[in-house]
């Protein structure tokens, strides 16, 4: 096993999967000649040729729309959206077609495409390079959504998404693209969709998160060391969702804080809280608390850290719950 950054693990997954499956192709803006603006696709064009790692015109709906046609011709396209907010032009194709085309064929055709993109804030970038759009994706029928928080999972979940017969959106937390090197299994490595990861075991309070917020929760757990035994649940995939793991943890601790970067209203944190309010109501020792971004545009980067859920805010919520 080699130590890799998260974005290197993404690159590794693409190399392994493209070598494994001849029908796979990578497409997007600047994925070829440049190897991607984050170098997630570096080396693919050289190794697999310009037809399997395609620099497309600058048109996100065109990318996703033509990927549908490529699926019909037997290809498995892995589409890159250059940044979170630049995926919005493809929402129409995603909602209108990607999630519905199989249904439309009476289940006769498969659309095994992947949309992957760097997402999330904290990187001191100009506006619209910081969004957390997972709620748009997970609310869309017919689409699955995975979000890794570690290099190994970045590789394994992307491989699972690629091999999945349904369309999958993979959101890669760019804040930790080059955060910390970690061991990543060599060669084929698949982390099945729908299995949460217990990032830390504890008995008093559960912090539920995904993406870059998992580390924030881990740091909050460190901070609470001594005061409380904190469990951190990394969801890893939002659809399929590992509801069993969620409910088991809630049953164990009775106290749940959900953490998301995205704006608060109708974000995925609301879904988690709703599931708990529906299925764990007798287990809960207190309210389900959400630590989230706000219902405002992602702010100017000088003050972005005050928008992003911080260790302090998570610790504050956990303490409030422990004292409830």
């Amino acid at each position: 096993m080699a130590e890799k950054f998260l974005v290197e693990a993404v690159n590794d997954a693409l190399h392994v999967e493209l070598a494994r499956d001849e029908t796979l192709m990578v497409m997007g803006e600047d994925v070829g000649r440049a190897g991607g603006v984050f170098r997630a696709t570096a080396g693919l064009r050289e190794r697999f040729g310009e037809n399997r790692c395609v620099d497309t015109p600058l048109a996100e709906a065109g990318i996703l729309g033509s990927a549908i046609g490529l699926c019909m011709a037997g290809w498995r396209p892995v589409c890159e959206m250059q940044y979170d907010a630049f995926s919005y032009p493809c929402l129409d194709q995603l909602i209108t077609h990607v999630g519905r085309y199989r249904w439309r064929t009476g289940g006769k055709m498969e659309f095994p495409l992947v949309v992957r993109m760097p997402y999330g804030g904290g990187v001191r970038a100009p506006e619209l390079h910081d969004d957390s759009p997972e709620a748009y994706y997970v609310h869309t029928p017919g689409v699955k959504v995975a979000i890794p928080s570690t290099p190994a999972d970045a590789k394994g979940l992307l491989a699972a998404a690629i091999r999945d017969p349904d369309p999958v959106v993979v959101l890669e937390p760019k804040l930790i693209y080059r955060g910390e090197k970690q061991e990543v299994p060599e060669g084929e490595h698949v982390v099945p969709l729908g299995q949460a990861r217990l990032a830390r075991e504890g008995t008093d309070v559960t912090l539920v998160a995904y993406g870059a917020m998992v580390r924030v929760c881990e740091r909050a757990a460190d901070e609470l060391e001594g005061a409380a035994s904190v469990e951190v649940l990394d969801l890893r995939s939002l659809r399929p969702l590992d509801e069993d793991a969620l409910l088991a943890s809630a049953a164990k601790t009775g106290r749940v804080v959900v953490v998301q970067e995205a704006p608060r209203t109708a974000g995925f944190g609301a879904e988690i809280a709703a599931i708990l309010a529906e299925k764990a109501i007798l287990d809960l020792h207190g309210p389900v608390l959400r630590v989230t971004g706000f219902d405002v545009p992602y702010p100017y980067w000088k003050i972005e850290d005050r928008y992003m859920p911080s260790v302090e805010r998570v610790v504050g919520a956990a303490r409030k719950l422990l004292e409830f």
Partner: protein
Amino acid sequence: MARVASEEHELRRVIDEDREVDGLGADDLLAIYRSLILLRTYDERSVVYHRQGRIGTYAIFWNHEAMQAGSVHALADEDWIFPSYRESAIGLLRGIPASTVLHWWRGHPAGWWNPAEHRVASICVPIGTHVPHAAGLAWGEKLKGSSAVAIAYFGDGATSEGAFHEGANFAAVMQAPLILFCNNNQWAISTPLEAQTRAEALSDKAVGYGMPGVRVDGGDVLAVYEATREAVERGRAGGGPTFIEAVSYRAAPHATADDPRVYIDLDRVEEEKRNECVGRYEAYLRRLGVLDDATAEEIKNDALETMRRGIAAAEAEPEPDPELVFDNAYVLPPPGLREGWDG
């Protein structure tokens, strides 16, 4: 200032010029006639079925048959068709049963076919959004080394949509063998062409994509055939996409729910009706001596019979199983999908 020479805007015609199309024998001409009649009959019967409450809202394609039949006859079986709702019954020309299409308009799951089987994509409801699909398919076929081309049908209104633009540009850049077939019936529901574009001709858009653009009389089934055949040949030979503007006129309401009297000039409609595409072709065939009364009668009866059997089959189909709500969305459905289901 860049502009396209005005002679380029002239419509290609065959019937009115009393020309003949190279390579088309009497059998071919009759086959085209058969297709026209099948589509016309499908359309006219559907309007009746709608009035009788036997199908739902229906998008009428009366006077669009020449564009559909002419272009499809220029395709090989391996080629893919991407219809909009205006071409809902185009699959009949590929062997899709009338009952299937009727089911579609009846809101029955049996109305959805497997696109791979007949190489006819699903009917596209949101305007222009299937153009990138067709571009991707054509590109994908080319990448595989196949010789198949694709054709995407869309209206004049669709040319205003971003999806049309992105799909057209993808096709050009990838040199995908795609025919962008624009049914310019001069209306998008109540919006006339001049409120849709300032282009002198929609075919001028091709120039901006670096692809050939041609204009044909959309009421002339043979002109449509000829133009499409050239585009197909170009695509198959590696020459990339072609934009075809077929100019016609929407001589019927947009759909059964639409009342065009509030926005259309009814005299103009009457005029267009008098020049409708099936009659024009029929007269041509009779002039050529290829069609006689008996054959015409037989072909029309066949089509009527197809529709009679189609609607009977559709109506004989059992009501769909409500479980179909969940059946086809995912290959591997996520757990909990049926949460709250009362089935």
